[in-house]
């Protein structure tokens, strides 16, 4: 083992990793693609806010309100810095990736798209980057086209270049498949979109926790992600959009905090980003999100990626040696994040997950909110193990031992 990370030190920051599951078995948490665990540093910042600074923001003259506002806006700056956004004003807090994409569909899509315009997505998207566009299609009459997936989960780029036509106004793709772990060919898709004059939305829910994300270098228009998959709390996420788009967009939700003036006849909007953040925001969530970015920066995103590549390759090698295990997606850890989707011949993924749980091993089973991928693979569901910075090779061994138990059990 040649880790650039001190895993034991990192694991001490995550108290949940010390708990036990049925019959005193230590937790082996391999469901990080669904949600990640939270380090004490993030928990402490959230607790400190409620304990010492809790107040509503942007409105009070009293000390607590000023402190809360400062902490909230400081978190926005940390997040902007983490993703190398040109300015924190372009960073809008949402409840998560799903709301971020819905915001774009409503506030940009309804404003700018008309019948006959095209949106291109891919077959490997999470439902949150499919359903908002289907609804928009049905309401506005746009065309919705899918870049298909090849058998190894990679995008069919020849097909993509035919699909991204000059009437394409938006290309919305994931940077990493949550179901298969494939790292998508973002820069090639961005090139095609640019040539067609289309805008680009990148769904970073799965990539942001694991790969260094540089919004300016990516040369995209919209970026969405969720804090809870990157060591932060649930219920908070980011929509980053270029200011030139935000200025043309109408509010998504309306009410308090997003207005400049309100009279009985009409209202005017607050400046960006407040224009898109109606109501009292998730203040503690934003602070926790900022703290999570600090934690990841301190560990180093490159170190995390290297660790995940090592552990994923180790797991791929181990799983391939179990005769009845079938792995979906690329077998090369360079081409995937720390996500491995698989099944066991003759055993339904639910049964796999159930037996693994009895051994303390937490994985996800089902369609992973990506049913089009399941159809393309011709399976009803898969089992999925997903890794993060705190997982160890020993835990991979626990996984493979537990899989052998599954095979023994179901014969």
């Amino acid at each position, binding site marked *: 083992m040649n880790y650039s990370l001190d895993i034991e030190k990192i694991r001490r920051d995550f108290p949940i990793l010390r708990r036990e599951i*049925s*019959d005193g078995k230590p937790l082996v948490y391999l469901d990080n693609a669904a949600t990640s665990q939270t380090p004490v540093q993030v928990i402490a910042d959230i607790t400190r806010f409620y304990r010492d600074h809790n107040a509503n923001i942007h409105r009070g003259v009293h000390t607590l309100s000023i402190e809360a506002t400062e902490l909230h806006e400081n978190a926005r700056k940390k997040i902007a810095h983490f993703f190398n956004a040109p300015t924190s004003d372009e960073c809008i807090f949402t409840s998560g990736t799903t709301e971020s994409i819905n915001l774009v569909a409503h506030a940009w899509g309804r404003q700018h798209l008309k019948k006959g315009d095209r949106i291109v997505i891919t077959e490997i998207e999470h439902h949150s980057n499919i359903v908002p566009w289907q609804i928009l299609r049905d309401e506005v009459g746009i065309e919705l086209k899918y870049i298909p997936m090849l058998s190894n989960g990679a995008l069919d780029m020849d097909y993509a270049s035919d699909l991204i036509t000059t009437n394409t106004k938006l290309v919305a793709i994931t940077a990493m498949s949550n179901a298969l772990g494939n790292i998508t060919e973002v820069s090639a898709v961005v090139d095609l979109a640019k040539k067609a004059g289309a805008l680009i939305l990148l769904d970073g829910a799965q990539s942001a926790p694991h790969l260094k994300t540089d919004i300016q270098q990516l040369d995209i228009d919209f970026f969405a992600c969720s804090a809870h998959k990157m060591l932060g709390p649930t219920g908070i996420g980011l929509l980053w959009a270029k200011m030139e788009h935000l200025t043309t967009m109408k509010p998504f939700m309306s009410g308090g905090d997003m207005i400049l003036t309100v009279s009985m006849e009409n209202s005017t909007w607050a400046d960006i980003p407040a224009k898109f953040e109606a109501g009292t925001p998730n203040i503690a969530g934003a602070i926790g999100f900022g703290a999570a970015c600090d934690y990841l920066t301190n560990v180093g995103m490159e170190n995390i990626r290297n660790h995940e590549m090592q552990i994923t390759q180790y797991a791929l090698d181990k799983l391939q040696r179990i005769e009845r295990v079938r792995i979906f997606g690329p077998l090369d850890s360079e081409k995937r994040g720390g996500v491995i989707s698989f099944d066991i011949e003759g*055993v*339904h*993924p*639910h*049964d796999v997950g*159930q*037996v693994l749980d*009895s*051994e303390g091993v937490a994985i996800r089973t*089902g*369609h992973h909110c990506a*049913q089009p991928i*399941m159809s393309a693979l011709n*399976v*009803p*569901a898969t089992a999925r193990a997903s890794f993060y910075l705190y997982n160890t090779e020993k835990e991979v061994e626990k996984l493979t031992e537990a899989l052998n*138990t599954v095979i*023994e*059990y*179901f*014969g």
Partner: protein
Amino acid sequence: MSGTLLDDLYKEIILDHFRQPRNKGELVDSTCSANGANPLCGDEIQLQVTLADNVIQQIAFTGAGCSISQAASSMMTEFVQGRSISDALVGVLSFQEMMTSGVPSEADGFDDIDALIGVAKFPARVKCASLSWKTLEQALDGNRTATTE
């Protein structure tokens, strides 16, 4: 194999029905049928019933899913075959009651089915076990689809 809870869930009789499902296949002369699905799990069942004189003369199922859904389907068909529609519907209620109460049913003919009692301790699996019963209810009601999502 460790874990008594797991052994409670996957009793030998359940694994037996899973490995060798009874009444699996298709009927050529069914009089009613229904399809059931748990889209979130990927469990699905196609159920066919041949009724005569308000009695289930024959029943068969096809489909795919986890061991619990497959074993429960097999046991359900074994139970209702030859029973009247009203007895079958009492079976549906008895099974529901067993899943919600966590107490084995004393219903006549539930001997094997009572082995599914372990499922009640796993809320996520109750819908797997219930799918075939729901689908039976739909088939007997003349509906075509069922879901336990």
